[in-house]
C-alpha cells in the first residue's frame, strides 16, 4: 500500500503543480523549422524522390539569390557539406542536377516559398504516365517531339532520385528565421568558414525503402520476424462512383444488356512534397465539372421514365501514378467483379458501356477538344450535340482523332481494347504549375471565394447567375462547360431537346472550389454530414494525394458524401431514424434541417492489380507498381554547427586532462608515504614503495 500511496501522492503533485518548466539546454541549442519534405516513391524499376541520411542530414545554410551563387557551392565550397536555400525560380532541372552531381558537398536542399518571379514550376514529366498508356504505338507522347507532349514545361524532377533531402518551407516566418541565422553566422568571410561555427540545418526524412517496389514488397511481406515491419506501401485509395438512376437490385448476379454512359474524371493530384499540392487546375476543375454535371442531371431527370440508358459517374483515384484507379476498375470489370457482390447489383462489363466521356484538363475553358482513338458512332453523335449546344454558351468544341491522347483515365480502357468507345474532353494543356505546390487558387484564374450564402443545391437561371458572377469568373467558366455537358447528356438520354432555363449553379461551383482550395470548414461539406450542428471541420483544404492504405483520405470521404448529397433523390416522409440503411442516407443539407435521400454512390478499390496478382511479373509494365516508402519522422531544425577547431580543442583538452590525471594520481598514490608523511602500514593491494 505504501507504494500505491506514494505513487498517488506523486501523481497528485504532478497534476496540481504543472510546475516550472525550465528549458533544457538542448532545447536552446536547436530551433525547429516547420515545413515538408520530398519523400521516396518506388516503381518496378526505380526509386524516385529523396531521403536523408539515417539520423538526419546536416548542411551549412547558404542562401542562393541568383544563378551565380551556385558557383560557390559547385566550385569552391569552403566548409562542406552545404545546404543551399533555393528560391523556386532557381529550382530548375539544370540546377538540381548540378547539385546532384556535386552531392558530396551538398547534404540538404531547402526550397523556400517565393512566388514573385515565378513563371512555371512543374516537376511532372513532360509525358505524364508515358509507359502506362497506349503502348508501342507510334505518335503517342514523345519527349523528343515537343508538339506531342502534354506538360511542355515539365522538368521531371519528381521522377529523379536525389541523394539529399529536399525540404520545402512555406511559412514566411520560418524563412525569415533561417535567413536571420544565415546572416548572423554564415554570410561573411566565406574563406573563414572552416574555422567558424556555422548556422546549419538538419533534415530528418530517412526513407526505409530502397531499390524498387519489387525488392521492397518482398522485404515487407517476408514473414520472418516477430515484429513485422513495412518498408513501403502500395499507393492506393478508393474510386467513387454513382449512377444517375438506381440500378436494379438483384440477388443472382447475371450479366445484363443494361447500357450505361460512363462520365469519368480523376480525384487525385500530386506534388513533389508531402501533404502539399492542391491540384486546382490539373484535376480539381474536371472534378467539379463532373460533380455539377451529375447534380444537374439528377435535378432535371429525377426518374428514368422511358429512358433505357443510365449514366455512371466515376471519380478515379491514383491516376497521377500510372492510372491506378482506372486500371483497377478495368481489371475488376474484366473479372466480372464490378460492382462488388455486396451492392447486390449485376456485374458490368465493357459490353454494358454505351460510351465513355473522360474529362481531362480544362486549362482553356472556351476551346475544348474531344479526343478519340477510333471512329465511334456514339461519340460522333455526342460530339455533334456538344458542338451545337456549346455554341449557345460560347464554347468551341472540336473533334480530334489521334493516337496522341491526353494522359487521362481513358488510356486504361483503350489499352485493354483499342476500339473502346471513349471520348476525352480536354483542352490544350497550358498549366505552368501542373502537379506542383503552386497549382492553387491563384493559378486557377485567381479564384476568390464569393461566399454568397445561397442554396447551392438548386439550379440557377442564366440571368441570376450573371447577377452574382462576371462572365469571366472561373465559376462561370466551369458552369458553362458543366452545363453544356449536362444538356448534351440529357439530350442523348432522352433523345429530346432540353427545354429548361435553369442550369448548373455557379454558387455550387464556388462552394466546392472553396472547400477544396481553402478550407474543409465550408457550408457544402457540412451539409453532407448527417448532422452539422456545432461541427467544426479542419480549416485546411483536404489533401488530394492518393496516399497509402491507412484509413480513408479526406478527399475520398468528402467525394463520397458530396455525391450522396448531389446525385440522389430526396425521399419525402421518411424520418431520420428510419433513414439509416443504404441506399437511404440522411444528410443535413443546405438548411441544416436534414433530409432523407435515396443515394446511388459507392466505392471500389483503387489499388493496382499488380499487388493482388500472385506472382505478378514486376517488369512487365502492365500495371502500376508505385509504392511509397515508409519513414519514421520528418523534421527539420537549425542550430550552430561547431567548427573543427572547436571540436579538436575540446577533445584535446579532455584527453590531456585524462592522461595527466591518471599519471598524477598514480604518482601521488605511490608516493603518498613521502607526500603525506605517512608512516602507516600499507594495504596489501597498494604498492608501498615509493615510485619514481
Amino acid at each position: 500500500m505504501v507504494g500505491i500511496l506514494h505513487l498517488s501522492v506523486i501523481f497528485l503533485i504532478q497534476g496540481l503543480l504543472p510546475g516550472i518548466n525550465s528549458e533544457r539546454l538542448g532545447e536552446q541549442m536547436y530551433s525547429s523549422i516547420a515545413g515538408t519534405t520530398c519523400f521516396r516513391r518506388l516503381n518496378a524499376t526505380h526509386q524516385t524522390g529523396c531521403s536523408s541520411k539515417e539520423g538526419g542530414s546536416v548542411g551549412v545554410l547558404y542562401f542562393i539569390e541568383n544563378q551565380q551563387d551556385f558557383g560557390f557551392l559547385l566550385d569552391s565550397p569552403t566548409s562542406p557539406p552545404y545546404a543551399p536555400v533555393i528560391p523556386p525560380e532557381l529550382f530548375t532541372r539544370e540546377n538540381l542536377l548540378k547539385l546532384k552531381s556535386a552531392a558530396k558537398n551538398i547534404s540538404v536542399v531547402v526550397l523556400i516559398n517565393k512566388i514573385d518571379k515565378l513563371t512555371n514550376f512543374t516537376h511532372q514529366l513532360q509525358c505524364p504516365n508515358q509507359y502506362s498508356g497506349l503502348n508501342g504505338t507510334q505518335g503517342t507522347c514523345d519527349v523528343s517531339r515537343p508538339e506531342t507532349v502534354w506538360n511542355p514545361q515539365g522538368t521531371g524532377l519528381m521522377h529523379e532520385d536525389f541523394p539529399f533531402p529536399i525540404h520545402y518551407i512555406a511559412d514566411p516566418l520560418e524563412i525569415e528565421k533561417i535567413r536571420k541565422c544565415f546572416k548572423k553566422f554564415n554570410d561573411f568571410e566565406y574563406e573563414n568558414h572552416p574555422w567558424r561555427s556555422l548556422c546549419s540545418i538538419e533534415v530528418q526524412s530517412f526513407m526505409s525503402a530502397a531499390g524498387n517496389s519489387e525488392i521492397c514488397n518482398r522485404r515487407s511481406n517476408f514473414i520472418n520476424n516477430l515484429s513485422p515491419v513495412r518498408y513501403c506501401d502500395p499507393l492506393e485509395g478508393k474510386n467513387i462512383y454513382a449512377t444517375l438512376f438506381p440500378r436494379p437490385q438483384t440477388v443472382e448476379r447475371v450479366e445484363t444488356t443494361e447500357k450505361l454512359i460512363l462520365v469519368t474524371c480523376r480525384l487525385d493530384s500530386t506534388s513533389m512534397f508531402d501533404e502539399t499540392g492542391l491540384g486546382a487546375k490539373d484535376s480539381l476543375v474536371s472534378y467539379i465539372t463532373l460533380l455539377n454535371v451529375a447534380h444537374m442531371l439528377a435535378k432535371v431527370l429525377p426518374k428514368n421514365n422511358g429512358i433505357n440508358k443510365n449514366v455512371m459517374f466515376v471519380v478515379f483515384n491514383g491516376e497521377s501514378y500510372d492510372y491506378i484507379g482506372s486500371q483497377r476498375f478495368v481489371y475488376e470489370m474484366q473479372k466480372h467483379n464490378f460492382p462488388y457482390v455486396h451492392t447486390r447489383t449485376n456485374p458490368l462489363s465493357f459490353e454494358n458501356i454505351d460510351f465513355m466521356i473522360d474529362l481531362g484538363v480544362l486549362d482553356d475553358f472556351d476551346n475544348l477538344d474531344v479526343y478519340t482513338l477510333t471512329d465511334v458512332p456514339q461519340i460522333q453523335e455526342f460530339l455533334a450535340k456538344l458542338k451545337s449546344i456549346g455554341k449557345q454558351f460560347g464554347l468551341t468544341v472540336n473533334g480530334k482523332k489521334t493516337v496522341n491522347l491526353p494522359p487521362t483515365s481513358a488510356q486504361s480502357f483503350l489499352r485493354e481494347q483499342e476500339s473502346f468507345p471513349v471520348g476525352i474532353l480536354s483542352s490544350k494543356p497550358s498549366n505552368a504549375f501542373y502537379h506542383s505546390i503552386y497549382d492553387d487558387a491563384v493559378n486557377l484564374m485567381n479564384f476568390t471565394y464569393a461566399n454568397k450564402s445561397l442554396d447551392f443545391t438548386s439550379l440557377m437561371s442564366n440571368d441570376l447567375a450573371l447577377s452574382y458572377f462576371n462572365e469571366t469568373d472561373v465559376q462561370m467558366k466551369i458552369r458553362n462547360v458543366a452545363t453544356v455537358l449536362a444538356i448534351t447528356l440529357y439530350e442523348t438520354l432522352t433523345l429530346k431537346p432540353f427545354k429548361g432555363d435553369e442550369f448548373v449553379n455557379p454558387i455550387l461551383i464556388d462552394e466546392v472550389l472553396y472547400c477544396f482550395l481553402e478550407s474543409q470548414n465550408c457550408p457544402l461539406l457540412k451539409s453532407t454530414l448527417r448532422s452539422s450542428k456545432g461541427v467544426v471541420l479542419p480549416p485546411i483544404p483536404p489533401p488530394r494525394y492518393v496516399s497509402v492504405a491507412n484509413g480513408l483520405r479526406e478527399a475520398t470521404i468528402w467525394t463520397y458524401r458530396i455525391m450522396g448529397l448531389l446525385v440522389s433523390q430526396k425521399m419525402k416522409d421518411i424520418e431520420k431514424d428510419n433513414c439509416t440503411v443504404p441506399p437511404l442516407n440522411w444528410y443535413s443539407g443546405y438548411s441544416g434541417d436534414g433530409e432523407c435521400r435515396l443515394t446511388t454512390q459507392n466505392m471500389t478499390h483503387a489499388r493496382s492489380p499488380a499487388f493482388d496478382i500472385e506472382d505478378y511479373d514486376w517488369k512487365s509494365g502492365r500495371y502500376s507498381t508505385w509504392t511509397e516508402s515508409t519513414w519514421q519522422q520528418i523534421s527539420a531544425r537549425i542550430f550552430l554547427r561547431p567548427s573543427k577547431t572547436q571540436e579538436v580543442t575540446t577533445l584535446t583538452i579532455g584527453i590531456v586532462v585524462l592522461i595527466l590525471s591518471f599519471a598524477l594520481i598514480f604518482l601521488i598514490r605511490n608516493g603518498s608515504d613521502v607526500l603525506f608523511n605517512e608512516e602507516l602500514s600499507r594495504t596489501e593491494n597498494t604498492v608501498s614503495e615509493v615510485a619514481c
Partner: protein
Amino acid sequence: MDAVVSQSPSESQNSQRNRSPKRNSQNYGATSTRSTDVPGTSTAENSSERRRRRNHPPTPDGGGGGREDEEGLKYGAQHVIKLFTPVSLCMLVVVATINTVRFYSTKDVYLLYTPFHEKSPDPGTKFWNALANSLILMSVIVVMTIFLIFLYKKRFYKVIHGWLILSSFMLLYIFSYLYLEELLRAYNIPMDYPTSILIMWNFGVAGMIAIHWKGPLRLQQAYLIFVAALMALVFIKYLPEWTTWAVLAVISIWDLVAVLSPKGPLRILVETAQERNEQIFPALIYSSAVLYTYMGVNLETQERSGSVGSNALPDNDQSGTASTSDGTGAEAEGTPLVNYNSQRHGISNIFILTFCFCFVFVFLLFKYFVIFVLFYLILFSTAAGFTQEWQSAPSDRITRRQIEVQANDANNPSQYRTVTTDNVPDPAFQPSEEERGIKLGLGDFIFYSVLVGKASSYGDWNTTIACFLAILIGLCLTLLLLAVCRKALPALPISITFGLIFCFATNAVIKPFTEELSSRQIFI
C-alpha cells in the same frame, strides 16, 4: 518476494550435513555480528587473528561464535560489490537499449495481461486502469507461484525443470532474436539469414548449457544478466505507461508478503529447500558465487566429470593459501563436479567438446530446420505469441528472486569443491553445496532494470542516475538488514520504494532546478 535470503541452515541441516565427513567441518554462522559484538572488541588484533585462523582448519563445532560471524561481514562487503556490478551492468544494458533502440520505448501492442490500455486522457481513469492491470498481472504471478510451490512440495522436479528449460529456451531464442532484430534495425545494418541463424543458434545453445548445465562462471553470469535485461526490456515495451509503475509498486508489496509472512509462498519455498538441503532453481538465481546444477545425468559426462573432478581435487593447503582479498575464493566455490575456475583448467574439456559439437551441428541444415520449426510451432500455437512464455515466466520470476546469504564457510573460505558424483543423492538435482555469498533472484534484476529503464525513457539523465543510486542504496540497506535479521528478506521493497520516490521526485523537482542551474552555468 523476491529476495529471499536463505539464511544459515538450521540445526537439522547441520546434522544432516554431518553425515558427510567433508562437510561436518563447515560452519554455517550467518552474517552480522553487529548486534552481538561489542564494537570495541574488534580490534586490529582481532582481525589478524581472524586472518590467521583462515589458514587452519577450524574446529568442527558450529559454535565458532561471533568471530566467524564477523568474517561474514568482511566478505559481505565484497559480495555487495559483486552484486552491484551485475545489477549495474544489467541496468546499463537496459538503459543503453532504451536510449538507442526506439522499438523498446514506443508503445503499440500490449500483453494479454493488461487489458486496460490507458487510452483515456483522464488521470483518474488511467490510475484505475493501471491498478487493475497490475492486480491482474500480480494475481497471475500469485497463482503461478502457488502452482510452483505445489510442484516443488510434491517433488515434481522434472516438471519444474522442463518448465524452466522451456522458458529459458524461449527467452534465449525468441527474445534474443527480437533484440537482435531490433538492434540491427535501429542501426540499419543488413544481415543475412544464415549469419543470424548461426549467431542465434550458437548464442542460444551456449546459453542453455551455461545456465542449466555448466560453463565458465563469467559466461553464466553474463547470460543471466542478459536474460534479465531482455526480460526487463520486454516489460518496458509491453506494459502501458502507468501500469509499469503500478506493477513495480504492487510487486514490491507482494514481495514483502510472500517472503515475510509465515505462510508466504516464497518463504515456504525457501524453507522447504533448506529442509531438503537443496538449491533453489539455479537457472533463476544470480549468485555472486558459482552455481552449477547437475541436470540429466548422462553416462559420458558423468564419467568425464568424475575424472576431471578427481584431477581437480586440491589439497587444503593449496586452497588455504589462495588470496582472499579480491574474492577469488568465493568464485572458486560451488562447482559440484568440476572446478572450472581453477587456473589449471580454464574452460573444461567437456565444455569445449560440447561447444564444438554444437558448432558442427549448426552446419547440418536439417537441424536448423527442426529447430526453426519448433520455434515457430511454439510461437504460433499460442494465441498471442508471448502467451506461453508469459505463463511460465511470471512464476519463474518469483522463484528467481532469491537472495541467499549463505553462512560463511568459516572452515576454509577458499576451499575448492571436490565433491564427486558419489555424493549426489538425487541424480536429477544436485544437492546444494552451500556457497558463501549473496544470491539475488533474477526477478530483482529485472524489476530494478525496469525501474531504471523506464526512468531513462523520459530522456532525463538525472532521473536515471538518481534512480540508480537510490536502488543501490536500497540494496545496501537490504543487505544490511539481512546481516541483522539473518533470514530471507525481500530485495524489492526498499530498493523499489527508494527508486520510485527518487524517480518521481527527480523528475518533478530536481530536474527543473538542475536544468535552470546548468543553463545559467551556476554551480552549487
